[in-house]
């Protein structure tokens, strides 16, 4: 019954739990330090492919675009570890604090 006492005391202190709203979906704020989806600042990338070499889950493929080589991230394999950000010599990769939102189709995750 000591649990009851605990509940009453906490309720008396008007402790409230902040939950995110279910209806305004997608509007979830993460802590700014959160390691969310990876992103590339295209203009900084020099195409050295170090990120691809160090990525632990082979989520990066180097492709050729009009400006030369660049990485493409497969978000269905990426595990948001941030190693590519650490490895990049020009700091072209950043981790946004965006929460990756669920998708219905795996293909939607494959390029970016």
């Amino acid at each position, binding site marked *: 019954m000591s649990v009851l006492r605990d509940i009453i005391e906490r309720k008396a202190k008007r402790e409230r739990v902040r939950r995110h709203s279910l209806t305004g979906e997608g509007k979830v704020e993460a802590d700014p330090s959160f390691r969310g989806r990876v992103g590339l600042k295209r203009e900084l990338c020099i195409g050295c492919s170090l990120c691809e070499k160090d990525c632990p889950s*082979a*989520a*990066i*493929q180097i492709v050729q675009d009009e400006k030369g080589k660049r990485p493409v991230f*497969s978000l*269905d*394999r990426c595990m948001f570890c941030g190693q590519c950000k650490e490895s990049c010599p020009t700091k072209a990769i950043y981790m946004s604090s965006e929460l990756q939102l669920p998708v219905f189709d795996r293909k939607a995750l*494959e390029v970016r």
Partner: protein
Amino acid sequence: MQMNAEEAIRALTGAEGVQEIKALSERRILVACSRDAYRGVVGRLAGLGFNHVVAMTGVDMKEGIDLLLHLGSSLMVTVRVRLDPSRPKISSVSDILPGAEMREREVRDLLGVEFEGHPSPSRFMVSEDWPAGVYPLRKAFTPATAAPETRRSGPG
């Protein structure tokens, strides 16, 4: 139990079958011994208070399979034995150190080391359909010889 490295080395030098004793660092000691002396050395260590089994490691060194038994309190002693790679076989120490039983089983499944006198002789495999005689931690087991499975290569 609170032996320091020097005392432990002194206590072990001259034991039968011990080939080499060296201190790797302040609290790590490596004892190499022959296969036949292994049991005796472990027994002696257990008598000295090293009766906590930290882990047992098997390493396929190509020229032989190294079996490492890590015993420890605040000081950790590693007993190293080299086994014949074609038919690795050694006597079990799970009667001296009951904590070693599952460790031996792990090494047996992954490296195919045979432990003589082990209380549960049944073999345990990766999954029920794991092929017999394939030991994943042997160096001969490579990605190419990995279990047959549908596999997508590369990202995507």
